[in-house]
């Protein structure tokens, strides 16, 4: 069972300064699956991705990638592991001084000795997969948000990674781009035989494409299951989140002093 998991997270705690961000997280990401990590903004989802990628070190516990604890890897081992990972950042993080073509070719030029003619063919192949072969000579500043996200996706799969991580891939996209990106995530995962982790708070779009969902709140996993199991939950925070209800276990108002006290009404009545 264990060997079927590409990523295993055990008793993971992460503290930023003195503020606990993640507490006692346990997760398994099986090979070949698309797994979503959902939760409100600020619940520690992106921090979790950075811990898997080795950009942060856990305060306690461990993240294992292909059976190896990420935080115990030295710099060479970490870079070797990252060559087998791809990450799509929230706003693409394209290199703004390079064309679309050069962005996608970046890893190939850095990590391989492939001739330019072969790199050209591979780049066009990756861009064809995301439907942007015709945009290869554009600069990032002339791309729309959805196009930039797709170019970043082509760049992330440049070296056919075994693990793809998506940080809020649906944020700020129109409905057509949402569907395009969602389909690409699923199809590329299946075509490349990869494993994908999608960090998102877009419930409806991600429910269509993922195999398993972890729900996080306050730095903890509070629910998990297949999309159907999650939909079937009829109470609590997950229900509120999935159905987009304004009030519920997660209150609309940020905690603070009473409204009357802030307006000094009590003092006026006294």
């Amino acid at each position: 069972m264990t060997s079927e998991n590409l990523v295993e997270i055990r008793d993971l705690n992460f503290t930023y300064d003195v503020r606990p961000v993640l507490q006692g997280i346990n997760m398994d990401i099986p090979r070949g699956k698309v797994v979503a990590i959902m939760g409100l903004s600020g619940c520690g989802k992106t921090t979790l991705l950075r811990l898997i990628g080795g950009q942060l070190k856990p305060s306690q516990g461990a993240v294992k990638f292909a059976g190896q604890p990420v935080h115990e890897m030295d710099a060479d081992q970490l870079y070797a592991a990252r060559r087998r990972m791809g990450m799509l950042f929230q706003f693409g993080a394209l290199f703004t001084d390079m064309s679309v073509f050069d962005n996608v070719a970046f890893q190939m030029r850095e990590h391989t000795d492939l001739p330019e003619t072969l790199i050209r063919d591979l780049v066009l192949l990756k861009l064809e997969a995301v439907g942007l072969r015709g945009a290869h000579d554009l600069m990032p500043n002339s791309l729309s948000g959805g196009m930039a996200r797709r170019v970043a996706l082509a760049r992330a799969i440049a070296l056919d990674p075994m693990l793809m991580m998506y940080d809020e891939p649906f944020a700020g996209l129109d409905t057509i781009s949402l569907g395009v990106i969602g389909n690409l995530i699923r199809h590329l995962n299946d075509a490349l035989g990869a494993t994908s982790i999608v960090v998102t708070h877009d419930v409806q779009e991600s429910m269509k494409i993922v195999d398993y969902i972890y729900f996080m709140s306050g730095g903890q996993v509070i629910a998990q299951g297949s999309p159907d199991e999650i939909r079937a939950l009829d109470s609590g925070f997950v229900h509120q989140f999935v159905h987009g209800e304004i009030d519920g276990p997660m209150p609309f108002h940020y905690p603070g002093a009473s409204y009357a006290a802030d307006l000094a009404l009590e003092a006026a009545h006294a």
Partner: protein
Amino acid sequence: MLERALGAVRGTGHRVVNGVWRFGFACRFFLAVLLHSGISFRRFHLTIKEIYFSGVLSLIIILVSGLFVGMVLGLQGYETLQKYGSESALGTLVALSLVRELGPVLAALLFASRAGSAITAEIGLMKATEQISAMEMMAVDPIARVVAPRFWGGVISMPLLAAMFSAVGVFGGYLVGVVMIGVDEGQFWSQMQSAVDFRLDIMNGVIKSCVFGVAVTAIALFEGYDAPPTAEGVSHATTRTVVTSSLAVLALDFLLTAFMFRGI
């Protein structure tokens, strides 16, 4: 009252600890840049690109400033020297002022304002838009790939810019002194030639500009890399680059001058 005093002590302590921590981080950063400099020479086209951005694109401001500084030196120098009947020494005055001091110092100050601030803003924005994180996740070391080529691009550009500043400045002095005012051309050049020593004046000026290049570029890169990833953070980092590197240039100039010309 006591609470306010304790708050002040705590604030001071916090600032001192932060300053020491930041200085330590800056030293480690500088060491990492030196250790990861191999790529800047193995793939020299990366460094050439940065020489273009830091050096070639700074040429206009350097050349125009050098010309005007030289012309002002010519005017002021003539006014002073003629009182003592020594206007023939104008070439010496212009050349020594530029080669020893004004060339390296003013070129470094202009370099800090033009190229240093651009480097800080670029690295800071790369950080804010997660380009640096993306590079790390692609198993590419941003210190080696982004920072080191910019460092060597700046270090190589700086002495060349200072040399051009001095050369154009001397020409400016010639224009005002010889062409406009009428100082004897033969005396202007011959006195300059006999008074300017290659090792003592020119080489020391080159050494100064190399040191300034290291200081300005390292400060610019560190400020960009350490900038908080927000618009305000990048803006403050850019300002700090110009202020810190300008002060560093002036302080280093005093120290270097004391060692080079006074033998302290």
